[in-house]
């Protein structure tokens, strides 16, 4: 084995301080010497580091970072250096399977697809396409999302399409729309190279995007290090580097940010000319902020007023500033309202659209940006507005269909509502691709019951048996990264191509091929009787996507597969004006808010009520950004006598999502093998809890049993990572989402994973309960490797009886 560094022990690697620019450092890890290298980018966090895949004898044998790329300059994190081993796992699904008499049995592709098509047609005939839903992911490529989007919106015509991106990135999109009129990230990673101040809000970057964090660590080691402001209830590794760390009570982000804005306005550290010329809503915002004095904020959030003043002073003094938000904002109370307050800080200070100044409303997954762009996640393609008839006409023209087929009578259905319709029985067929709601959604007992419903026809397309996929009625084996070609985009709008390096195992097929096959068999036509989907390969799909984006803000029209394969990734917009992409958008401070351009007419941040087109026309800001005000509201569930602790959930550095990939790398697995609960020192000593003690954590929804990890969290709060489910053995209840609440932000519809009221009690190892998914696992997971390899006929024990 060859490796340039041990990323398990040293997560961020050796420091390479800035002297003018960010130096290259090529990280590499191979198990054998590759015969050839194939250009790609990493899909194991949302940073999208460019990498080459090493191939020998038709197998992936390692990876190395691409020094030429703007995103990582050669670096890779632990998940990138190790996670590719999942491709070679013996657990890979190799054949389609169909449920017969309650059991999953091996089937041919023809049998499996034929069944899906037959059921689709029956359901459409009896109940319309509104009885079919799609739940996708943040893992596929643009080509696959766009194809699925066209199938759903112009083929079937169902409003029920969303992705697990609803869980990770919906608020990023929603807040950008509310502030700037449409989605589209105003920042750029290169802003981090020069900025004077970085504010991380609810974003533990040191864990979630390790290479981006290395970029900041290298700034801190070089000349002119930036000031760092961290807002996070936990004392994270990120917070260790903070100039000021504000640790608010869970669920109080709006109050903290309102407090900062209030101080900026009071001290005059705002750009009045910018506010006057490029924003609307200042007076209303100022009025709404007036009660958020440092003392008032301290009462709500627990943050000492002196700390808030220090943070406001740093922000007020900085001549340039980058802010980032992640799940501490997006999955918490008043998500959209809070993320909008971060946008407000930049608008108040005129800090965007130029070097060193940017907002990164971070994504949670590598291709999450693309579900948003292509219309797979409850939006229309290329930031079009479902409520604007001209936008619908435009799409209908591009797809050559009658506009009435495109569902636009209300906003596309969000994931939580899709599952609610499944629960109520009005959605009768659900097609899940590359995600695992049986572990990642809130309130798992409820989620398992929905997926197990007899009257729900469940199609799952995945690379592995998961807690979700073994419940399928039809299970389709999918090719994954490295086994297919496609493109994807990160938070600084950089588009990468990932080429096919090896063949998929067995009969597994690329997701794109599966969708194309479905479209062909369903015989979707355009209005001239020609096939609706006019492409048959990834490059054809990319060309179609380019046409859909031409002239829109996310303009891909200047890119080609060839150009993307030459060196670094390329930022959109890329067109005739910017043939090599553009580092910033909104450089003229004209935002996408005009009636004609905007992706949304806006929402009431408290209720989610939409503004009507007529109302919007009357207040059309014609390119000025919205300063959105919000009052603090306490969370809906708060600790009480019965459930006295706050629970918050999140990630560990070695794992991604539900570990279906990272859990199959031995070293990543061993680095973080099990769930745990982080508990404050004071509470632990009060309750006589020691490191490693078994604790039972209960909420009104469920219970988990996990070992204690003591310290580095504020009193009264607990933390459990959400990655751990039940696919890799028989466990006691341990998935964090057994405990979480089914509820969501009124605007972005992102679920609230970041707070729930829980209680804890000490238990002995003898008191551990049975696996809550036990019946579904027996005989399926324990010998999964050999089982899948030798599968023939009925072997798998099914989830539905």
């Amino acid at each position, binding site marked *: 084995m060859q490796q340039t560094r041990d990323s398990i022990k040293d997560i961020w690697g050796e420091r390479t301080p800035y002297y003018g620019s960010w130096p290259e450092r090529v990280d590499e890890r191979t198990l054998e010497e590759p015969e050839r290298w194939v250009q790609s980018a990493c899909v194991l966090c949302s940073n999208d580091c460019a990498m080459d895949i090493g191939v020998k004898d038709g197998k992936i044998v390692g990876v190395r970072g691409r020094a030429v790329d703007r995103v990582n300059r050669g670096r890779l994190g632990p998940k990138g250096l190790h996670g590719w081993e999942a491709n070679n796992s013996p657990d890979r699904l190799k054949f389609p399977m169909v449920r017969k008499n309650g059991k999953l049995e091996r089937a041919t592709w023809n049998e499996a697809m034929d069944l899906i098509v037959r059921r689709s047609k029956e359901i459409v005939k009896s*109940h*319309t396409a*509104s*009885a079919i839903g799609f739940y996708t992911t943040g893992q596929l490529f643009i080509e696959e999302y766009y194809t699925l989007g066209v199938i759903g919106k112009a083929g079937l015509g169902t*409003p029920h399409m969303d992705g697990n991106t609803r869980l990770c990135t919906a608020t990023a999109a929603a807040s950008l729309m509310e502030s700037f009129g449409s989605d589209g990230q105003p920042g750029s990673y290169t802003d981090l190279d020069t900025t004077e101040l970085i504010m991380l809000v609810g974003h533990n970057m040191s864990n979630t995007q390790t290479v981006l964090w290395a970029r900041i660590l290298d700034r801190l080691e070089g000349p002119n290090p930036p000031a760092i402001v961290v807002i996070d209830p936990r004392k994270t590794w990120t917070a260790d580097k903070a100039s000021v760390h504000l640790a608010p009570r869970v669920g109080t982000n709006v109050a903290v940010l309102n407090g900062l804005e209030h101080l900026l306005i009071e001290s005059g550290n705002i750009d009045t000319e910018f506010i006057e010329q490029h924003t609307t809503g200042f007076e209303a915002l100022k009025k709404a902020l007036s009660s958020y004095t440092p003392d008032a904020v301290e009462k709500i959030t627990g943050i000492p007023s002196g700390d808030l003043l220090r943070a406001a002073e740093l922000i007020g003094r900085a001549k340039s500033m980058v802010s980032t938000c992640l799940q501490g904002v997006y999955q918490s109370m008043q998500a959209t309202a809070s993320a909008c307050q971060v946008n407000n800080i930049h608008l108040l200070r005129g800090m965007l659209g130029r070097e060193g100044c940017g907002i990164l409303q971070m994504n949670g997954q590598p291709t999450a940006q693309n579900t948003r762009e292509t219309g797979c996640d409850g939006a229309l393609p290329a930031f079009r507005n479902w409520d604007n008839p001209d936008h619908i006409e435009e799409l209908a023209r591009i797809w050559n269909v009658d506009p009435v087929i495109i569902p636009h*009578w*209300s*906003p596309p*259905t969000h994931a*939580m*509502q899709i599952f*609610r*319709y499944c*629960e*109520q*029985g*009005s*959605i009768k067929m659900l097609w899940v691709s590359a995600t695992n709601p049986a572990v990642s959604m809130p309130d798992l007992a409820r989620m398992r019951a929905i997926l197990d419903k007899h009257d729900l026809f469940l199609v799952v397309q995945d690379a592995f048996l998961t807690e979700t996929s073994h419940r399928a009625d039809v299970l389709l084996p999918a090719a994954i990264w490295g086994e297919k070609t496609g493109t994807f985009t990160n938070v600084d709008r950089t588009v990468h191509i990932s080429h096919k390096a090896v063949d998929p195992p067995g009969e597994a097929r690329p997701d794109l091929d599966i969708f194309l096959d479905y479209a062909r068999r369903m015989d979707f036509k355009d209005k001239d009787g020609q096939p609706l989907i006019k492409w048959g390969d990834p490059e054809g799909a990319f060309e179609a996507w380019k046409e859909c984006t031409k002239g829109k803000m996310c303009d891909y029209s200047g890119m080609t597969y060839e150009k993307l394969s030459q060196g670094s990734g390329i930022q959109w917009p890329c067109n005739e004006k910017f043939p090599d992409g553009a580092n910033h958008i909104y450089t003229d401070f004209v935002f996408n808010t005009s009636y004609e351009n905007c992706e949304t007419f806006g929402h*009431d941040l*408290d*209720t*989610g*009520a*939409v503004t009507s087109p007529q109302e919007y026309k009357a207040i059309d800001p014609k390119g000025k950004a919205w300063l959105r005000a919000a009052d603090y*509201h306490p969370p*809906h569930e708060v600790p009480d006598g019965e459930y006295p602790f706050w629970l918050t959930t999140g990630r560990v550095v070695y794992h991604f999502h539900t570990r279906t990939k990272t859990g199959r790398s031995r070293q990543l697995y061993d680095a973080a093998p099990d769930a745990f609960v982080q508990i404050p020192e004071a509470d632990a000593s009060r309750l006589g809890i020691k490191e490693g003690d078994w604790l039972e954590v209960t909420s009104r929804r469920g219970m988990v049993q996990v070992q204690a990890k003591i310290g580095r969290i504020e009193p009264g709060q607990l933390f459990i990572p959400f990655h751990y489910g039940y696919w890799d053995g028989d466990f006691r209840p341990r998935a964090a989402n057994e405990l979480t*609440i*089914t*509820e*969501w932000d*009124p605007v972005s519809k992102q679920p609230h994973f970041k707070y729930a009221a829980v209680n804890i009690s000490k238990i002995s190892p003898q008191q551990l309960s049975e696996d809550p998914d036990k019946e579904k696992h027996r005989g399926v997971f324990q010998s999964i490797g050999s089982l899948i390899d030798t599968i023939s006929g009925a072997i798998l024990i099914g989830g539905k009886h």
Partner: protein
Amino acid sequence: MFIANYLGLLHGSEIHLRDSLKKVAEHHKNEPDIEYICKMLASWSEVHIQNLERFLKQYEEHKESEPDKLQHSLFQGTRKGGLGLLRDLHDLYLLASEVELSYMVILQASQALRDKELENFCRDSVKETERQVNWLKTRIKQSAPQSLVAAG
């Protein structure tokens, strides 16, 4: 002068709206957004009801016997299922519209009375009533196709 009668009508309508919002929140708990948002909207009506008390007192002596039956009932009780939710939201919308209209009527009268405080109360409160109406409209538009077309 019938202002007191109309204030009484508004008072009754706000109470009816508040109670109905609470009932819907409780009854449709499995729709999490319905539960929490209806509770929040009910709390807005609660504040209106409290603020209304002093005006009711102020104009009490002018109260005439009612010329017509101003009170009527819309919301009889909660219903079940997707269609039931839609019908409940439909009724809430009509109740909220009734409140909205009452504010408009009293706002007009308050100007003729030169009662600046009553006028301001109406202007502030009706803004929130409009937000209640807008949310109900948004949620009804979302529920309608699924309940009427795909369900069953």
